[in-house]
């Protein structure tokens, strides 16, 4: 119980700071122990704790569990030998409809999550009982794409941070849920919203904006965690005079989309933020925006203090199929090699050198028809005849992609990368469309292919050394669930049929499952309290937790 010792040390420091005598300190500690409370006095979440999150496996302090984006829990109490006995512990109901996409945080016994329509809540993570609940009063005229969703919070100091559907960034007091500050990132009426979980780095709160369906001009922002003051903004579509501006035809850059709607990762060793971007607008029509359309569908390396671009790598140039690169860019070290791994929505698994953005290789991990050749660097090139047409052109992967925002995981024990793959092709059509601010701007549409081929899905284990598949677990239909790996040798994922499943990370054999009663649209996580490990997943309108009996 390393963390309990640490907690004790922090408590002592805290009480000493209050000027309490040693005697009273011991009395308080005795008292807290006597009540059996997990932590009457919570420690502040410092920036250092976030960097060293690996030392606190009982906590889950950011969206992907660690700055590397591995979604790996070092807890091993639940393991391949006992997973079959997992049982539900508690459920928390948001009472909200639609997709429940949150990955909760757990810090020192308290769970912080978000729900539809910008709900947020803090729960006693042992019982599921609410400590506070918050819901933002949203304007009536927001029309965010793809559901009124939110994926989670960031925590730093004594605050949690929420991005909202009306494109605000809000700091809530972590003990009361009261609003500490509230800043409009941009006018939501232009089609902007924020759905991702912010990322706390040093004293900054990093967010990216959603709205690739509206002809926005995407950006990534950094806010001072203490005051909400904006420290920098990186426009993902360069303006006049900036490098990359020449990759946009005429005035198209002004409505070039390129949102940044999934939480990035952070390399403290090189002080670099890795953030990914989505489709150029309009998604289905390349006419009018000739060029590569930087920095759409890219991986960006940014300096946290300034937002300065160190380098970029673009996955899908001049995209016409909505192939957002908004998948968590996972940091993995292989010997001397420092890598970013990404299974991209366009169907390729990419390995990129995170020192300079150089592509090492790209291999398909799902059915791909949009590309059948590669350039000198090994990057896939789009086929000319894969472009959308007026009456529609069938292309794989479909618009929802070979994967999407659901998190992958990297397991340092098996050294495998696990990703949710979706096998679904679509018919892409294109037609001219006039831009109107705040209105949907797709340049036409996509729809399912009308042959008799059913959509399927799979959880795939990929060897990062080669990009080859090691095993797969087949889903009856494509799922929107992410994946968690744990030191117990387990992989957790969900399916569209409502099952939450534990698999053997080495073999892909299912060891346990639980029917949640609704599709899983979230990525699971794990935490521990009082030495007991829990696994949590959101499904339907409930957050479920599981533990050994």
């Amino acid at each position, binding site marked *: 119980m390393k963390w309990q010792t640490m907690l004790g040390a922090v408590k002592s420091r805290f009480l000493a700071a209050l000027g309490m005598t040693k005697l009273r300190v011991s009395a308080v500690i005795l008292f807290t122990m006597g009540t059996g409370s997990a932590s009457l006095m919570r420690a502040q979440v410092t920036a250092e704790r976030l960097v060293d999150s690996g030392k606190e496996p009982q906590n889950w302090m950011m969206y992907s569990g660690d700055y590397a984006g591995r979604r790996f829990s070092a807890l091993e109490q639940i393991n391949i030998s006992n997973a079959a006995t997992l049982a539900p512990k508690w459920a928390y109901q948001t*009472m*909200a*409809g*639609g*997709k429940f996409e949150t990955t909760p945080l757990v810090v020192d016994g308290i769970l912080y999550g978000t729900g539809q*329509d910008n*709900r947020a809540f803090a729960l006693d993570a042992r019982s599921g009982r609410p400590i*506070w*609940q*918050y*819901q933002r*009063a949203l304007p*009536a*005229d*927001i*029309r*965010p*794409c*793809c*559901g009124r969703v939110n994926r989670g919070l960031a925590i730093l100091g004594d605050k949690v941070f929420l991005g909202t559907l009306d494109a605000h960034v809000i700091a809530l007091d972590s003990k*009361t*849920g009261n609003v500490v500050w509230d800043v409009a990132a941009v006018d939501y009426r232009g089609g902007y919203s924020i759905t991702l979980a912010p990322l706390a780095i040093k004293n900054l709160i990093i967010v990216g904006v959603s709205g690739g*369906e*509206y002809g926005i001009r995407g950006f990534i922002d950094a806010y001072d965690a203490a005051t909400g003051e904006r420290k920098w903004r990186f426009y993902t579509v360069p303006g006049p005079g900036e490098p990359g501006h020449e990759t946009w035809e005429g005035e198209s850059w002004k409505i070039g989309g390129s949102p940044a709607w999934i939480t990035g990762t952070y390399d403290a060793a090189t002080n670099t933020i890795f953030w990914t971007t989505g489709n150029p607008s309009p998604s289905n029509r390349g006419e009018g925006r000739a060029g590569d359309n930087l920095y759409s569908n890219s991986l960006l390396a940014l300096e946290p203090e300034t937002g300065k671009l160190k380098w970029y790598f673009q996955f899908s140039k001049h995209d016409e199929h909505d192939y957002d690169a908004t998948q968590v860019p996972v940091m993995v070290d292989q010997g001397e090699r420092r890598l970013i791994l990404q299974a991209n929505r366009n169907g390729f698994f990419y390995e990129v050198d995170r020192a300079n953005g150089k592509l090492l290789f790209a291999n398909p991990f799902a059915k791909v028809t949009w590309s059948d050749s590669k350039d000198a660097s090994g990057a896939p090139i789009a086929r000319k005849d894969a472009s959308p047409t007026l*009456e*529609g052109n069938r292309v794989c992967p479909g618009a*929802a992609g070979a994967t999407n925002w659901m998190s992958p995981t990297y397991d340092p024990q098996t050294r495998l990368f696990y990703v949710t793959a979706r096998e679904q092709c679509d018919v892409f*059509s294109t*037609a001219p*469309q*006039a831009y109107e601010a705040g*209105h*949907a701007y*797709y340049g*036409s*549409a*996509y*729809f*399912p292919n*009308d042959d*008799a081929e*059913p*959509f399927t899905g799979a959880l795939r284990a990929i060897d990062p050394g080669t990009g080859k598949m090691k095993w797969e677990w*087949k*889903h*009856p*239909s494509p799922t929107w669930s992410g994946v968690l790996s744990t030191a117990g040798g387990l992989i957790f994922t969900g*399916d*569209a*049929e*409502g*099952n939450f*499943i534990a698999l053997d990370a080495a073999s892909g054999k*299912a060891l346990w*499952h639980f*029917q949640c009663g*609704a*599709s899983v649209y979230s990525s699971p996580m794990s935490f521990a309290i009082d030495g007991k490990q829990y696994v949590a997943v959101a499904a339907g309108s409930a957050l479920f937790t599981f533990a050994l009996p």
Partner: protein
Amino acid sequence: MSIPRTNLRRGKLWSRRRDLGLLFECAVLVACAAAAMALRAQDKNPFAGDAKAAKVGESQFRANCAFCHGLGARGGGRGPDLTRAQKRHGNADADLFRTINEGVPGTAMPPNGATQQGVGMTEQEIWQVISYIRSVQAKAPAQIPGNAAHGKELFYGNVGCSTCHMIQGKGGRLGPDLSTTGSARSRDYLVESIRNPSRRLAQGISEAMKEFSQEYETVSVVTAEGTKFVGVVLNEDHFTLQMMDTREQLHLFEKDKLRSLEKSRESLMPAYDQKMLSDKDLQDVIAYLLGVGAP
């Protein structure tokens, strides 16, 4: 406009301080009432006959509706043909607006903005879509060729449709209930479904409602005891199967306890070729189907 209504339906808004919560709830109620009145005040399409609005509406239609209703509004595997003069859920502008904005409960037609996929439309955009639908729909109800009365005789008699299909409570359960099919499917779709039923299995809407979309896939299982059942899949997940056999018995299985399980996208429905059903009789059966489901 769907947004305040959605809030109302959810009813309870959270607040730690009850008085503030009440205040806010009142504000939302007032806003909703105002919005509802604004909607009711306008039951005519402000863009009626406006070709430019219809063009914009086509973009919106492609983005929001074509997924189920097809590119030209002629109906897809999931959504009805909207080029017919008569719409099942009302023909007036106000009816179309309501159908689009509020959806049709009990069907795959979701309320505007609630598909969890696209963006949803503003009031103005809905009217533009209605302009588009008006621009592509037939001027008058189509004359249905064929003898519907004879079609009904065939349906319940020699052709054997009612063995597996029900219409208004009468018939079998193994295939889709066809009570509303006439108003939902195009003539071409019905012809294809009868002549070549495996070409395209009956579909529900996918994705947001994927949790339960029956496709009438054919399934054949052998239990641990060696009993064989053939029928259609009612639902399934990775671990379990819910099926109806050809005797209309329900079976609920855990897949790993079965000796074998085979699924096929060859429909259990026979392909009715010319020998089994002449073009004339086909026309009569379709006349019956179109008539029974007519709005």
